[in-house]
């Protein structure tokens, strides 16, 4: 088998994996019960979704300036997305939003059972 065919197959596998993670992240953001749990679902789209997609596109780009730019995009994602996520969580907490916690995880939060809501 030609090497370019192998690279193409690997590339498409990564692109499809990334797309699947993006969809799963979207489902999670709709399905999870409160703000903090939804952030975890959004985290999938930031890391797994974007990561696999860009890895797949890198294989399409090969050794070129386009690939370099893709790597820059990935790097910016990896530095900005946790900062943004943390800033959101901090803002939610300091404005008084309490996370819904699982029954057995102690007495923090408002005691409401999150898992019964999904």
């Amino acid at each position: 088998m030609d090497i370019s065919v192998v690279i193409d197959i690997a590339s498409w596998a990564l692109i499809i994996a990334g797309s699947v993670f993006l969809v799963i992240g979207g489902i999670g953001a709709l399905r999870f019960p409160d703000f903090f749990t939804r952030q975890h679902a959004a985290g999938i789209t930031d890391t797994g979704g974007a990561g696999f997609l860009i890895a797949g596109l890198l294989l399409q780009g090969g050794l070129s300036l386009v690939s370099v730019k893709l790597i820059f995009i990935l790097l910016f994602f990896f530095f900005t997305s946790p900062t943004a996520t943390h800033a959101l969580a901090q803002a939610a907490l300091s404005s008084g939003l309490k996370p819904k916690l699982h029954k057995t995880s102690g007495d923090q939060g408002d005691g409401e059972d999150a898992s019964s809501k999904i």
Partner: protein
Amino acid sequence: MLHLISLSTTLFGTWLLMSGHYEPLILGFGVGSTLFTVIVVHRMDVVDHEGHPLHLSLRSLIYFPWLAWEIVKANIDVARAVLTPGSNAIQPNIMKVPTSQKSELGQVIYANSITLTPGTVTIDLVDGELEIHALTFAARDGLATGEMDRRASWLEGVG
């Protein structure tokens, strides 16, 4: 001085890779904007071990691939939690974990690594202790082993 030279090289390298033009005039613009940027950040006094952490360069080559693999594994765990039907798929919980990093930069790297890993989000850092919101008990227990803490400390050059 070392930081300034390294910053100039990094900036101009970035500029070259982004532009892809090699005519003398355009290259001159690149050198000019690099120098201007370096002068401005030097006057702002932010070119130091925090703003431009040179000392982490070598060890980050080992830390970040490890982190990337952890992120892939955590992605699969959270994706499974999203797709699991029924009410027991997630067990949201909050815990506190200690940090063993000596510098603020090390603590920020550790906290951001936790947030970057799906299933755990850092919501607060008080007196060297991180407050973590975890999506499942499995995510909580994975973090509680302290492996990421050890590796972040190692990256910083302490442990």
